């Protein structure tokens, strides 16, 4: 479904990603794990089109999307729930959710999608008319995920959904992601919270200094010596 081949990308003259190759098959949930500054966010921003790869190609469902802008990639069916939530602060929760359904394929079904999505997020349903800014961090993360689902994406990408949240909220976030995976949406999760993600995912890639150093089934990575030492502190 998604395939990166030898992708280089970065900011200005600085190359951050070095020949990154990875793929995600339809129906899979895949994770990219790596420490702070490894290039996880850069990878997702390059896929979605906020950054242009300087080398290599990105294909989505057979189409070359390497040169497309973010809004064009989103129209094709990839959605990113960004790091740090990035809600529209001066809009209500409801308006934020409707913005999620801006892409053409989702717009006409926005009402119906909203009902479905709110079933998954009862707490969000209670706060529809509040300003997004006034919500707690955990609630904002739920809104950000709900907004991502409003786009009815074929591939949903999460950038560190557990970042900065209390442990109990982290559990809730991952249980929501689990139920999203069960509905059959293809998912790509980027995380430093390695234990949780590897349990939620089918396969994983380990990214270090902008390079993929390991790839394996998620369960195999959980028992991999390098992963255990570097990321699980065992």
């Amino acid at each position, binding site marked *: 479904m998604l395939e990166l081949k030898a992708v280089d990308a970065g900011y200005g003259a600085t190359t951050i990603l070095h020949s990154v190759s990875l793929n995600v098959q339809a129906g899979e949930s895949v994770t990219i794990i790596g420490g702070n500054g490894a290039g996880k966010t850069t990878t997702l921003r390059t896929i979605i089109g906020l950054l242009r790869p300087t080398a290599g190609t990105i294909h989505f469902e057979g189409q070359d999307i390497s040169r497309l802008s973010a*809004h064009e990639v989103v129209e094709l069916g990839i959605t990113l729930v960004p790091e740090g939530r990035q809600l529209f602060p*001066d809009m209500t929760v409801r308006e934020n959710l409707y913005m999620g359904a801006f892409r053409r394929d989702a717009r006409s079904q926005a009402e119906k999608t909203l009902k479905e999505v709110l079933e998954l997020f009862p707490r969000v349903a209670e706060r529809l008319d509040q300003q997004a800014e006034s919500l707690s961090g955990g609630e904002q993360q739920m809104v950000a995920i709900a907004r991502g689902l409003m786009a009815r994406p074929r591939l949903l990408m999460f950038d560190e959904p557990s970042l900065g949240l209390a442990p109990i909220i982290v559990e809730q976030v991952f249980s929501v992601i689990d139920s999203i995976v069960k509905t059959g949406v293809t998912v790509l999760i980027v995380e430093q919270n390695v234990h949780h993600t590897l349990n939620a995912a089918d396969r994983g890639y380990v990214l270090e200094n902008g390079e993929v150093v390991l790839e394996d089934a998620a369960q195999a990575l959980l028992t991999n010596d390098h992963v255990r030492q570097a990321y699980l502190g065992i």
Partner: protein
Amino acid sequence: METFLQVVTNGLMLGGLFAIVSVGLTLIFGIVKVINFAHGEYLMIGMYLTFLLATGLDVHPYLTVAAVAPLLFVLGALTQRFLIQPLMHARDEHVQIFATVGLSTALMNLALLVFGADIASTPASGLRTSLHIGPVRILAGQAVIFCVSIALVVGLHYYLQRTQTGRAIRAVAQNRDAAQLMGINVNWIYVLTFGIGAACVGLAASLVAPLYPTQPTSGTYFVLIAFVVVVLGGLGSIGGAFVGAMIIGLIDSLSGFYIGSDLREVAVFGVFLLILILKPSGLFGRRSLAHVSP
């Protein structure tokens, strides 16, 4: 008492005039985050277009708005697409400021070349007749400007709050990256917003031209007040610009009558500076100027 009412009314009418020329400026700043120093020249060009169309076709100047507003929309959209957009990724955002200052000078000199320095007088078409409303008198054209300025502010507010495109415009202003992640074409929104802001000043031009003489420097006269109004109201706040315009209009009129017309500008800028010292983000600005990011 009657004199006081008349002076206040004059102030409000002046406020309507300031509001209608300022709304487009604050819209462009609030969304595109570009300070358009050519805003006054847009007004000047709109006034010349009104003059040319009204005299050439021998129609009421108000009717020309049907052509002037769309033409200004195109001018604004072209400015964004071919002047500002290529500079959006410049290291230094001040480059954009120099670009709009350059455009301002270029348009003014172009007008000088085409029309000369002489004054072009758009036919008043009855808009300079006085209406008697209770104890006060106002020019018909001023009353129209006042009412249209309110309608424009309300209309823009409705457009931004209630329409799909309006929400997309707000989304871009609040979080540019997140807006792209929703599938919004940010560059297109910028072009559209610049166009709408310029069309607003086109509308203003067709209403202002019958009351004020048109010359290449007409824009400079209005644009200074427009900047004061926009900063006072809180950069990017449309309602704020309206309130700011009313405040400046009232101070201008009251000080001109009670203190002396030489001191009007001292009073206007004195109050302006005072409010900014007390509230640096302007009356309705959410963030101080230092925090407005590109």
